[in-house]
Structures are given as structure tokens and as C-alpha cells.
């Protein structure tokens, strides 16, 4: 898509000029003109009193430089650390199977490092085939060897879609692979679907600091590459009797200019609590003060839950960053998520919307958090929560 000014309608009133966060609208021959710095944020669309600013569909993009149809199959790059495959890899096999079925193609996994029993787990979680290298260079994560071998495999086997977790590892080396093979990469996807008309991968991700969602396409180059946040996709079926082939890949000639000398484990208690908790009670800007979190703590204590927070609450320094849920914090998936005084910017929603049950308490009936809530309570947190706490105590006989 592009955003353009209809010169016939534009009166040159300049109203739109200040609406652009990127200063991409200028006056040219007494008409508004959107220049090359437009980032498609659409802030200008509604401010034009004449309705002269419009969104148009475009087919512009890179020329078809690759033989698209020769690329087949869905690949999941499985991340391992200390020889154990990360859970997000199994989630991606679940998503990958769906995409592979839609494309009537196979599902493969790629594993660098770890032993054969881990490669077998990828088969049990749904992979038809595993490309596995046990070369010593993959004992620790270094970008260059990962990039080199994965790029070689892509050139040789030509997958159509290539996914990995949006973890520090995936987000570090996948961009290099994309640059090496000359294709597009979409970061931090929260949804992946196949466009039934074109067969292209529709990649949905948060945009503009997580204020809104965007669908991204990579229509002319292959493979289509994406990183996906952990805990967003559901795992597929585990089948211990599942069968597939494991291809061993040699990488003896691959070297690295970086070297990992130590790996240190350092997991804060809040991090573990947040990601393992069945119940999360989270607070946002609407709490208005640091003391609000004491009340949340009491509720969380009664429910055996952990404390989460929106970026706004963390920015206010009411609570440490380790509690932050959202695009720039943790992604969580508890049974119950209770959002207190959180308006629900997309930045926050992408970190918690796959929770089983979402309860939202907010004064503003139009708050976007209510769009994802199973139970919506329009009201003052400071009036509602104390009653909930009281009633819970009664139920529990405290």
C-alpha cells in the first residue's frame, strides 16, 4: 500500500502537515505532497478536511528475480541451547504444519548442534524431515557458522517458507541469512496465514511501537522468512510413534570470527514466575500511583499468581522492567490474565492476548483492552478490586 494526495481535492490548507510523525508531508505547488519519508503510519488520513489523502494498493516491489515455483516446503529452524531444543521450535512446527498443508508441501526442521535424540523429538513434534548438523562449531551460538550453513541449505533445497523463534538468537542471525540469500524477513510475527489466492505468506506483526498491526508480504522473493514470538503459536500434536528422516549435514569447513568463551545462566525470579504462572495480575497507567501495585499484590497472593505490568507502569517506575508484559517485555500465556488500569496498546496486547481468560478492569469503556477481554468490567480499579479481594477471601474462608 501507499498513501497519496488526490490533487483534485487538496486545497493546500496545510492541516495535514503537522499530523505526520515523520515530517513526510510538504507543500509543493500549493498542494500537499507526501515524500519518500512516508512510513505508512496513516496518521494523516483522517485529518484532511477534504478527504484528499488516500490509501492505495500497490503492486510495486522488487522484480521477480527468483524462480518462485521452484521453492517448496516449510522449514522451521529449531533453536537449541545447551543441547536442549527451545519450546518455541515445537510451537513453530505446529504453525508450520498448518502452512505446509495449505501449500500441499512438506514440513522440515533444521537443527544445528544437540544430539540425535533431540533431532528425533522434532520428528515427534511433527517434522517430516530434519536437517541436522552435529559439527562441534555449533556447540555455542555464533552467528557466522549458523548463517553459513543455513544459507547453504537454503540454496540447495530451496524452501518456500522459513521460520524461527523471535528470540535473541533468532533475531540476531536470521537477518544475516535474509541478507545473504537476498530475501525479505518479517520480525516478531504474531500470526501467519497463507493467502489462498496468491499462495503468499501473510505475516502479521505489531507496527509503530506496537500501536497497531501490519500485514507484511514478501511476494517476489523466496524463501519468505519470519521470526515468531514464543508462546504465540500453539504446539502441534506430539506423537512418539511419528516417523521421518534425519539427514546429517557436514560443516567441518565452517569457521567463526566470534567465539563464545562462557555461557552464564542468570534467571531472575520474576521472569520465571511470570512465564510459569497460571494467573497474572497486571497493572498499567490507570493505577495512577505506585501504591496500586500493593493491591494487585494482594489479589495475586490470593490467586497464587504473579505480577505483570504494562510499559507505561514500568516507565513510571512503579515496578521493575522484569515485570513488563508486551512487545518490548515478556510474552505470557497464563490461564487467567487480569488487566487492571491497562488501556491495551497493541504493544501490550501482543504480549498477553493468547492467555486463556482475560479479565479487564478499566474506567474507559472504549479502552482497546476490552477488545481482547473475555470479561469486561468498566469501572474504577480502586472501587472494584477491593470488593473482588474481599469476596475472594470469603470464598477461601480467610
Amino acid at each position: 500500500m501507499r498513501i497519496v494526495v488526490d490533487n483534485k481535492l487538496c486545497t493546500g490548507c496545510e492541516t495535514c502537515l503537522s499530523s505526520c510523525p515523520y515530517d513526510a508531508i510538504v507543500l509543493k505547488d500549493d498542494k500537499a505532497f507526501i515524500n519518500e519519508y512516508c512510513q505508512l503510519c496513516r496518521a494523516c488520513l483522517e485529518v484532511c478536511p477534504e478527504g484528499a489523502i488516500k490509501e492505495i494498493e500497490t503492486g510495486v516491489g522488487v522484480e521477480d528475480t527468483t524462480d518462485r515455483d521452484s521453492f517448496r516446503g516449510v522449514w522451521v529452524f529449531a533453536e537449541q541451547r545447551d543441547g536442549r531444543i527451545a519450546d518455541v521450535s515445537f510451537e513453530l512446527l505446529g504453525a508450520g504444519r498448518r502452512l505446509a498443508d495449505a501449500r500441499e508441501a512438506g514440513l522440515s526442521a533444521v537443527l544445528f548442534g544437540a544430539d540425535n535424540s533431540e533431532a528425533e523429538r522434532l520428528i515427534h513434534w511433527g517434522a517430516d524431515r530434519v536437517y541436522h548438523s552435529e559439527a562441534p562449531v555449533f556447540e555455542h551460538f555464533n552467528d557466522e557458522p549458523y548463517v553459513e550453513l543455513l544459507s547453504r541449505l537454503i540454496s540447495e533445497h530451496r524452501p518456500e517458507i522459513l521460520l524461527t523463534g523471535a528470540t535473541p538468537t533468532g533475531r540476531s542471525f536470521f537477518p544475516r541469512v535474509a541478507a545473504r540469500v537476498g530475501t525479505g524477513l518479517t520480525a516478531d510475527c504474531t500470526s501467519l496465514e497463507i493467502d489462498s489466492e496468491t499462495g503468499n505468506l501473510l505475516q502479521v506483526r505489531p507496527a509503530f511501537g506496537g500501536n497497531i498491526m501490519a500485514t507484511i508480504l514478501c511476494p517476489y522473493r523466496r524463501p519468505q522468512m519470519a521470526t515468531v514470538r514464543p508462546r504465540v503459536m500453539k504446539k502441534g500434536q506430539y506423537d512418539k510413534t511419528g516417523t521421518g528422516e534425519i539427514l546429517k549435514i557436514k560443516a567441518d569447513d565452517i569457521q567463526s570470527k566470534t567465539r563464545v568463551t562462557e555461557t552464564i545462566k542468570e534467571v531472575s525470579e520474576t521472569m520465571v514466575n511470570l512465564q510459569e504462572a497460571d494467573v497474572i495480575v497486571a497493572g498499567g497507567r490507570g493505577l495512577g500511583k505506585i501504591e496500586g501495585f500493593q493491591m494487585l499484590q494482594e489479589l495475586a497472593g490470593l490467586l497464587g499468581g504473579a505480577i505483570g505490568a504494562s510499559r507505561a507502569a514500568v516507565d513510571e517506575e512503579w515496578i521493575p522492567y522484569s515485570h513488563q508484559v508486551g512487545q518490548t517485555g515478556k510474552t505470557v500465556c497464563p490461564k487467567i490474565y487480569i488487566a487492571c488500569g491497562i488501556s491495551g496498546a497493541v504493544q501490550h496486547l501482543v504480549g498477553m492476548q493468547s492467555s486463556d481468560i482475560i479479565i479487564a478492569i478499566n474506567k474507559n469503556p472504549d479502552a482497546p483492552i476490552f477488545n481482547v477481554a473475555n470479561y469486561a468490567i468498566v469501572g474504577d480499579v480502586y472501587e472494584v478490586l477491593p470488593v473482588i479481594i474481599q469476596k475472594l477471601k470469603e470464598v477461601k474462608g480467610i
Partner: protein
Amino acid sequence: MKIIVCIKQVPDTAEVRINPETNTLIRDGVPSIINPFDLHAIEAGLHLKSELGGTVTVLTMGPPQAEDALREAISMGADEAVLLTDRAFAGSDTLATAYTMSSAVRTIGFDIILCGKQAIDGDTAQVGPEMAEFLNIPHVAYVGKFEEINAGMLRVQRLMDEGYDVVETSVPVLLTVVKELNQPRLPSLKGKMKAKKSVIKKLTHPDIGTEEKNLGLAGSPTQVKNIFAPEAKKDRKVLTGTPGEQAAQLIEELKSLKCI
């Protein structure tokens, strides 16, 4: 030691709001700032210069008004600033941006390149690693601490989800940095005076030897198909009444779901 810090001028997304009816951003006086992670990259550049000597050059790709961000970097202590600006760069995705930036970096000359871990408007974290690939140099992402600094070798801590790795890398290298690395200094008065007088060098497409087919929209494999706000859940229950009634309904619902 030639140190280049790549920065981006961004709208302060923490201040951006959405109009729920039209799904458009409301700018409403949202200020343009240096991407917060890039401030830590600038600080890291100044620190490396104090240890190893050399110069710190800040580089950005953007519209003419991105000069403000470059001048702010100079006021913090950067030696010189370069603005990469050309109509041909229009519509660049991360791949085209990284191609263009890396071409500029090669033109300027470099030993160590520093970037913030990601920009707060796009949050992709892709341009840094992609630049390293175009330059055929190693990179280390999410650098949270310098352990040892030498002209030929850096030992750094790379933050991971559950702890950190100690990574040694040869130089030249590209590093992307996180907030834990340092506390960015504030501009000094002397720095501000210097920033005012500084001449910002401008580079365009012909200056950096880029190929047109790899630039801007033509060089961008990814496209934005559409932009939307998330849809409402269909099975939502609105609990009404006094706070007491709302609380009572919620407790009943949770009981029926066997949550309590």
C-alpha cells in the same frame, strides 16, 4: 580507531495514540527523538574512543530534519556527523536500508560499528545484523557489557533470554547494544555550542556507489499489505452494575470455570 554509530530519528512511540474509530495514529504533538537504544550506542562509541583513541562518526539515513538528531549526537561528544539522504531511498525496508547504510559506512571507512539493538518505531532489530552481512564482518547483538577492549579484539557480554554469553570477536566488527550497557551522558554546554556550528556532511546515492535496483522500494522484498487494529473477541461478557455486583458476577464466573 574509526568508530561509526548508526542512529535513527523516530517519533516517540510511547506518546503515540490510536483513534479507535479510524485505526489511525494521532500525532498530537508527539516529539521526534533519537531512538532511545541509539543513545546507548553513542555513549558506547564515546567510551570506546576514550579507551582506544580515534574518532566517532554518527550516521543516519533520513529526511533533512534528521539533522537535529545528528546535532544532538555531536552535542554529546561525537566528532562528526553524516546524513544519508536521497529520493532514491524512498520506501526502503530493512534489507534496502541495511544495503544503503552499509554502502555509506564503507565509503566513510570503519573499524567498529555500533547500533542500538532496535528502533522503537519498527522494533525489527534487523538493520544492524544485515549491515554486518553486507560488509562481510562479524557482529554481536545485544551487547550488555564490555569486558575487555583491545584494538584487535573485543570481549563482550551478549544478553540472552536466560543470562548472557561472553563473546570474543575480532575487529572490524558491528555491535548492537542494549540499555544495560551504559548510562548515556547528557549534552554538555560546550558540546551544544559545537553542535550548532558543525557542518553536517550529506551523502547521496551517487556518493556511496549504490546500485539503483537495490535501493528504496525497488530493493525492498517486503511490502506492507495493510494496517489494522486487532478485532474484538466475540465471546466477551460485560459485567455491569455497582462495583459490588461486578465483583460478585466475576467471582461466580470464575467459580463456574473452576478457576477458584
